[in-house]
């Protein structure tokens, strides 16, 4: 290891403000780690460091030129104990956006590191491997498919290039555990979010849940506070919705018989009267008494006479499948992927990623028809209830409710069905290094992107928003994606006095004032994105004609029938089969394993399947689907590769992706309106209203 002298040029000092933040007095461990290099604090010089986060240590830096993108940017490559970042010359990190979506690479996000020298020498840098030459260029491949390519300057600065490269390798090795960006100074950001728009309800209080319930018009439901202290299940939120008639004691009674205590809860109440529920698998080893069974049944039934149990994982990939497909996809999308151009399509097929996207969409489409077509209780059942249940239930809501397709609606949906519902983000995104990595959430985002492609006028948010969400999953700045359960999230956020220090030992104890941080969520976009970028989250093609107000929920008669359900179905393998009973235990509890009921049905020949498949169920004959329902295409030719996300590392195929046409037209439109307004102040208000209200335009032109 060459401990090179650091020569901070004036340029660096200016841009980054090599500085130790007052809040940087962190634990001894951090100091130890920075032993190899001490940035000069005398450079501080009153120049307030906007670049450094509290607790962040600069390990090494070197001047370089960002390549691969036009224009090439001169700047500085900086490695800290939290991230690798590129600082272009003269670029100021603004106060409002302390992180950069473009130039920052959290250490956990670095998927592959390559050093290049000359035309032929390429070394793949694994943690702990020594660097064999002085690199001329470094390539950082993000696990989020981004690519940062920096060429170092020659002329005496080679040691620095070597040093920064080695620093990255070492920092990566030491940083296998996630390290959260602590104490981001967000006074400003906080203000902004407060004033700008209605914040996304984080669903940490019962008021949030109550408000949300009212919004959905779920009158037969109430907020249960039984899990307030997480004693039913740590993976469940503190509050959830249960049928109004069910007592808390019954809830407790019922939930004990589900895997990890995740009993049936309401996900979404369809305005037409159906309810979408989710729950974990039946806990087979339990021996419920009659009372228990009745409680379970009434909760599943939720007051409907028809109950459809959906076997969630059926026809969907396993977690391992998803992980494998994602790894393959990442390999395929690397710039030097081994797939030849003419074999690209079969290589893409070989990853099976698109296949999985397809099966998710197909299943979600089926379920949304089930939910919207008739009044019934549809229960998504997955053993763990923390992965595909969330995916399906969010997709179903996106397909069925126009409101979920707005920017706010979508964020609340993710917050409710993923974050609050206890999707183990940390484990699934592989941040912990545990073996159960499976990017289910990213699969979900891909599904949403497909919907966006297929229905460009139905979503208020744009592809860029999805991309931002995709990338945010790898930035350890807020707790949203950094915890596996609501309990851990709440604990870390300092919601309880009685939290223990056992959890996450590698984590440096943050200084006081960090509790502010806990209030932040991934939805505080101004952490990472500036206002220009946030503006692009809006889809210019969104047709406000399909706005939520136009969709009036139908009043439904009360279907609250006491007594056993009149029909119980299992939806599995694309078909409904009648079930004799709702719970597996009733007759012979000890013998009836959960899975045994769900054996494959008698095989249906493909011929006869086709005969039935497209036939409308006869009693649905005249049933129009509600106007807001989207039926996605899920055929081979319709499922596409999210190029803007996955092929970011191959910029040569990035071009021509966005047709700036609609936004261009909008610019033109406002320009013309501006002109008109200038010339004739008299008609300006009228004109203004025209633009705002599409209905006026419509009525005039008709």
């Amino acid at each position: 290891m060459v401990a090179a002298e650091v020569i901070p040029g004036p340029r660096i000092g200016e841009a980054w403000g090599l500085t130790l933040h007052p809040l940087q007095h962190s634990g001894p461990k951090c100091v130890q780690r920075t032993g190899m290099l001490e940035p000069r604090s005398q450079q501080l010089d009153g120049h307030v460091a906007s670049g450094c986060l509290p607790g962040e240590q600069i390990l090494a830096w070197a001047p370089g030129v960002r390549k691969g993108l036009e224009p090439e940017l001169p700047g500085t490559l900086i490695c800290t104990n939290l991230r690798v970042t590129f600082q272009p010359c003269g670029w100021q990190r603004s106060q409002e956006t302390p992180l950069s979506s473009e130039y920052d690479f959290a250490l956990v996000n670095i998927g592959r590191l390559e050093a290049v020298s000359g035309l032929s020498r390429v070394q793949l840098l694994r943690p702990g491997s020594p660097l064999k030459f002085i690199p001329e260029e470094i390539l950082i491949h993000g696990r989020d498919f981004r690519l940062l390519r920096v060429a170092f300057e020659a002329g005496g600065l080679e040691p620095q290039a070597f040093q920064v490269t080695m620093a990255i390798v070492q920092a990566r090795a030491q940083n296998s555990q996630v390290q959260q960006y602590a104490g981001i100074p967000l006074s400003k950001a906080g203000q902004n979010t407060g004033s700008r728009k209605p914040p996304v309800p984080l669903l940490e209080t019962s008021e949030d849940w109550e408000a949300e319930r009212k919004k959905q018009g779920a009158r037969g439901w109430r907020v249960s506070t039984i899990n307030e202290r997480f004693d039913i299940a740590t993976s469940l939120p503190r509050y959830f919705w249960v049928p109004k008639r069910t007592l808390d004691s019954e809830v407790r009674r019922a939930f004990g018989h589900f895997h990890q205590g995740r009993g049936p809860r309401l996900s979404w109440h369809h305005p037409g009267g159906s309810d979408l529920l989710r729950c974990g698998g039946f806990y087979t080893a339990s021996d419920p008494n009659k009372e228990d069974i009745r409680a379970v049944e009434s909760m599943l039934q939720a007051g409907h006479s028809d109950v459809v149990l959906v076997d969630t994982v059926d026809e969907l990939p396993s977690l391992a499948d998803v992980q494998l497909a994602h790894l393959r996809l990442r390999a395929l999308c690397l710039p030097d992927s081994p797939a030849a151009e003419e074999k690209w399509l079969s290589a893409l097929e070989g990853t099976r990623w698109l296949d999985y996207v397809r099966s998710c969409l197909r299943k979600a489409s089926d379920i949304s028809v089930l939910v919207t077509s008739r009044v019934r209780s549809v229960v998504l059942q997955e053993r763990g209830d923390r992965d595909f249940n969330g995916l399906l239930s969010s997709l179903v809501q996106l397909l069925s409710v126009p409101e979920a397709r707005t920017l706010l609606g979508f964020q609340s949906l993710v917050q409710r069905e993923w974050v609050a519902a206890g999707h183990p983000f940390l484990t699934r995104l592989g941040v912990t290094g545990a073996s159960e990595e499976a990017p289910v959430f990213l699969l979900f985002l891909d599904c949403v992107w497909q919907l966006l492609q297929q229905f460009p006028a139905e979503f208020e948010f744009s592809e860029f928003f999805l991309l931002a969400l995709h990338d945010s999953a790898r930035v350890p700045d807020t707790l949203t994606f950094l915890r596996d359960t609501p309990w851990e999230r709440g604990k870390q956020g300092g919601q309880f006095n009685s939290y223990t220090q056992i959890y996450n030992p590698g984590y440096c104890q943050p200084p006081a004032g960090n509790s502010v941080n806990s209030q932040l969520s991934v939805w505080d976009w101004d952490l990472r994105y500036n206002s220009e970028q946030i503006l692009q989250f809006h889809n210019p093609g969104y047709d406000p004609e399909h706005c939520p107000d136009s969709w009036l929920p139908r009043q439904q008669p009360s279907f609250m029938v006491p007594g056993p359900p009149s029909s119980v179905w299992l939806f599995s393998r694309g078909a409904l089969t009648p079930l004799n009973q709702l719970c597996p235990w009733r007759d012979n509890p000890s013998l009836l394993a959960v899975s045994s009921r769900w054996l494959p049905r008698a095989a249906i020949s493909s011929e006869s399947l086709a005969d039935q498949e497209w036939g409308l169920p006869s009693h649905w004959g005249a049933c129009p689907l509600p106007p807001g329902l989207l039926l996605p295409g899920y055929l081979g030719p319709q499922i596409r590769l999210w190029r803007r996300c996955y092929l970011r590392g191959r910029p040569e195929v990035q071009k021509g992706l966005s047709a700036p046409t609609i936004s261009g037209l909008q610019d033109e439109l406002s320009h013309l309106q501006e002109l008109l307004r200038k010339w004739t102040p008299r008609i300006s208000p009228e004109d203004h209203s025209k633009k705002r209200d599409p209905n006026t335009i419509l009525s005039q032109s008709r």
Partner: protein
Amino acid sequence: MRAWLWDRPPHTPVLFKISDLLAGPIFAFPEVPWVDHTFEKMGTLNMNLEIHTNEKEVTEKEVTLHLLPGEQLLCEASTVLKYVQEDSCQRGIYGKLVCTDFKIAFLGDDDSALDNDETQFKNKVIGENDITLHCVDQIYGVFDEKKKTLFGQLKKYPEKLIIHCKDLRVFHFCLRYTKEEEVKRIVSGIIHHTQAPKLLKRLFLFSYAAAAQNHAATDPRNHTVMFDTLKDWCWELERTKGSVKYKAVSVNEGYKVCERLPAYFVVPTPLPEEDLSRFQGHGIPLWCWSCHNGCALLKMSALPKKEQDDGLSQMQKSFLDGIYKTIHRPPYEIVKTEDLSSNFLSLQDIQTAYSKFKQLFLIDNSTEFWDTDIKWFSLLESSSWLDIIRRCLKKAIEITECLEAQNVNVLLLEENASDLCCLVSSLVQVMMDPHCRTRIGFQSLVQKEWIMGGHSFLDRCNHLRQSDKEEVPVFLLFLDCVWQLVHQHPPAFDFTETYLTVLSDSLYIPIFSTFFFNSPHQKDNVGRESQDTQSKPLNLLTVWDWSVQFEPKAQMLLKNPLYVEKPKLDKGQRKGMRFKHQRQLSLPLTQSKSSPKRGFFREETDHLIKNLLGKRISKLINSSDELHDNLREFYDSWHSKPTDYHGLLLPHIEGPEIKVWAQRYLRWIPEAQILGGGRAATVSKLLEMMEEVERLQEKIDARPHGQGALLAEAPLLLRGSARLSALFPFALLQRHPSKPVLPTSGWKALGDEEDLAKREDEFVDLGDV
């Protein structure tokens, strides 16, 4: 109404009175001159119908058959059941199957009830259930559940007829309820008229032209340069500034020199005229197009190979040497010869690939579709159609690089210079010459390179059914290549993908002369022949007269609303060439890419440096010699710069970039439709905004004159129908927006009869409250 039709059991026909139908849409075209004829024909048809209906238990069935002038009814069959495509479960429409000398038509009983409201994009010549005889690809019969290809004389007649069309429609006709003699007549009639070899003069084209003499001449707005006069060629030379070094010659007037070549063409100025006639036009460098830097694209048909005769080949050699010497000498730049007969695609490749490729879309039923669906990408790849497109585009880029960057003339060489030569040279022109990206320019280009270039459409489309071997979709391949460009750079084109799709359909409509001859000589000759028998010259329609096929409203969909004219008019452009509704930007042209404003999601335009991880690049252009280095650099550097939509345009040819032309290939597959989504949604939003921009622009234009704003309302094509299908404008077959696509094999179990009634009640309750 819709629900009622849906619920109707398949055996009850819907009855319509002829009086109802007379008010129907077919008679609503006052400007179409053949309406009168239609009425005449209607009379005879009704006579025929009455005879048949007497025999049927269906007593009052009335149908309308829309016949073109000169079209004759050949045979027919009634009580034919046409399967509705989205249903494989024995549901369909009863009607009459008719074969004329122009088309096969199905006259459904309830057809006209549905198609007046939503089919704005209606073809006036070909209805939704019409198949022109030339459009028929394969005919299958189903015998005892087994599918067999039908050809020649049949011993046994099928119970079901499946027709695959060249525009990829698939029709299923069930003949089980049809009288036996009618089945015989219609099946053998259809087989005979679609599959038996035909004589050129028996083409419907001529009977139509003879009968429709009174059709108005050319549309005044149609300024497509036809290249059938010397003037047209001179004009093109002027436009491209090629007149310094090249001259238009009329030596082939009356096809004295060669029947393959057009009457007029352009050659290098110093070329002696007597050379032209020496090898019947072989070995002559013909001018295609001149680049702004003076380099030209030339083509030459190779001299016939005569291995035995040494003397002749010696002569050929010296002749060629002379020719090359002429064009190598200044003022010409160096000439690079590009031999398309070797080292490039063979026609055989194209044929094989396309026949594999199209099978992916010719789907008989849903089961078949789902079977192939899982392996979609690998099937697609194994057809190698997309790879062929890639290779064509790559070849065009190579030639563009020579012309643009190396300042070299390029001479394309092919056996007859009428297949791949046409393809490559027109692709190069589309990429290099912005004029060719306007609709008029594109049509002129097709006219110049394909029609006058002697592409044998008759053989390549197998219009006369004389040889299946000759049937190669070269022109379709060209359209597909252009589609890739349109798809990648939509703002650069004046026309839309819909335009390309309807153009590809027009290949099979035998009322237009454009695609029904092998060479201009053949066309003129046939025209002259028939001139003897009749006093008036034949009035052959050109496909470029789009008003024959589409109403002005529907023609709006052929035009790209986002196309912006080049700020200053080209000198060479003819007066009055601009459409009055051609759009001009009200903002100064801004660079769409690399504008700092889009910093975060910026267009990541650049490429990896070529030497870094060179593997990837070498995959793309798999050769290491210098020429390919140049090519790569040219390609990469173009793509790293912002695109000038009025300048050079290069396609992306990487794996993920070559796509399936979904609009053309998937439009008839009901499973592929996305209701309320797809491009149609974006397009309608765009049109809406365009209208508003135009309105405001007009307002502003009106201001300086002190007048109040006059709002001229553009026809609102897409208004009213709030949710369009993604297959718009071709989704006319699918009109069941209320259908949930839930694969529900289990539903049978749900509905035993009494239960069913109960449920229905419940449902009704729900709806009422």
